[in-house]
């Protein structure tokens, strides 16, 4: 006999942890965002004051916060299309061959996705080194007479450098999602198209891409959400510099919370980010539905 209590025993630990560390913190963040909680308030609750919408008013006038918003938009606008384009291209190319070589390429392109972000950020900072003798990239482009470029020290290219690293890292997982979907497209569709005289490009354009609609929208949503939360790359490689040119919203929140100990202020920023993420997801879903 199935016990009536058993399912509760089974779910209790997992649900308890999720309630404590995911659901309840949202409510807590909301409450904190209306207070001036800082390190002093952490030690003594009586020193926490309710400040209404003060944090929200201040943060929307904070020039660094506004800067971090434009930076984050830059990451999303350039990063997301590049990730989708590259991962889709690689998935289609790999799927054209069946040999071991092609499956091995899948391993190659996926490998950046599983590596530690701190380690690869340090490696890329080394590759991006402004000196032509130390930085590999400047050395290579120096051979054809370009540069040296201050990849991480020049405010006009620092964001691009971080996008390069992040795109390199996120191709793998999205390529796998596209690959899985590609394998589900019936072979007969291509055979029929070929009989009708369709070129390879037309087959990709009119069969592959439309058939991948579901996975493309999945990848788009998850990638946008991920890039809106862009954090580790600027944190490890540039600490948001030079001159906040790489500070993302997530890094802004972390800095205010854990380096300046302005918990209330940071919580307000995090909830604004949350609202943006929800809106972006809803808009994307709406567009998807209209397209269907």
């Amino acid at each position, binding site marked *: 006999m199935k016990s009536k209590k058993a399912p509760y025993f089974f779910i209790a630990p997992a649900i308890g942890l999720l309630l404590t560390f995911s659901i309840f913190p949202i409510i807590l963040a909301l409450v904190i965002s209306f207070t001036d909680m800082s390190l002093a308030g952490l030690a003594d609750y009586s020193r926490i004051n309710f400040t209404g919408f003060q944090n929200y008013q201040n943060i929307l006038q904070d020039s660094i916060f506004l800067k971090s918003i434009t930076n984050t938009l830059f990451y999303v606008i350039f990063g997301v299309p590049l990730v989708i384009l590259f991962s889709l291209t690689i998935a289609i190319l790999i799927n054209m061959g069946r040999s071991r070589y092609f499956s091995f390429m899948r391993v190659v*392109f996926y490998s950046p996705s599983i590596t530690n972000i*701190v380690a690869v950020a340090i490696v890329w900072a080394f590759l991006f080194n402004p000196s032509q003798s130390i930085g590999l990239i400047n050395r290579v482009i120096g051979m054809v007479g370009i540069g040296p470029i201050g990849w991480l020290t020049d405010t006009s290219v620092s964001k691009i450098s971080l996008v390069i690293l992040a795109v390199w890292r996120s191709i793998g997982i999205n390529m796998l999602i596209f690959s899985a979907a590609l394998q589900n497209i019936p072979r007969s569709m291509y055979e029929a198209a070929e009989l009708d005289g369709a070129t*390879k490009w037309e087959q990709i354009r009119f069969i592959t891409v439309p058939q991948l609609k579901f996975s493309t929208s999945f990848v788009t949503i998850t990638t946008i959400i991920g890039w809106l939360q862009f954090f580790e790359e600027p944190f490890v490689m540039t600490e948001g510099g030079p001159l906040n040119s790489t500070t993302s919203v997530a890094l802004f929140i972390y800095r205010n919370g854990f380096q300046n100990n302005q918990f209330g202020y940071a919580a307000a920023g995090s909830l604004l980010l949350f609202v943006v993420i929800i809106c972006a997801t809803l808009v994307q879903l709406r567009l998807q539905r209209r397209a269907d």
Partner: protein
Amino acid sequence: MINIDKKLKITIGVVLGLWGLITVIPFVWMILSAFKTNPEIVAAQPNLLPNEWTLDNFRELFQRLNFDVYLLNTVIITVLGFVGLLLNAMAGFAFAHYEFKFKNFLFVLVLATMMIPGQVTMIPVYLLLNQLGLTNTYLGIVLPGLTGAFGIFLFRQFFSSISEEFFEAARLDGASDFYVFFRVALPLSKPIIAVQGILTFIGGWNSFLWPLIIANDQRFYTLSVGLQLLQGQHGTNYALQMAGAAFMVVPILIIFIIFQKYILTGFNISGGK
């Protein structure tokens, strides 16, 4: 799959090969630089291969710096992560094979947590763990990410595909619910445990944010936090940095190459539905 001729296939193979080479250059350069001395890297344009292969960088990490402590902490945290795997499996099993009050509501709630960005929970969770006195403890580092909606979802999907009759037969023999779960359900779920186990290992080994926030004391630093500290303190010792990075990345690459079949097909289970 598009039908292609041999010539096109070779062209595609070459394109992928070159692109793949660019993709792995950072790893190759990291490993080669880890065996060079720093003066060699800094001085003139270094050769591709080290002039003289040296293990001094690794020796320094473990003898002079605290990488032995960081390694131990990382291993402890990774092992504790496997408790979460068990909890996810239990929850997934209950959602798949039991009827209970609020089941659908709770399952939607679990899925909804996937939407919550880490930045929102970061501050309140820190305050919460601080209040519980769990900062600078292994428990505090592990707890926030122990269970995850994605893992629960995958286990539920997997257990849903197993017929109820398997479990019914055991119950008729008088087995308890826990016996059924541990002795019947878990052994059946080896394939998904393999996938989840590898992902849990990689996730634990790579975990950065919670160790960074919860561990202020160097004694509790993990490799990734220690590596970040190393970059700050030895900013111009590139050889040492590359050795530290290689020590974090290479074991994961090896594990990935050994188990790639499980990991890559694991995404077919989850992504191909």
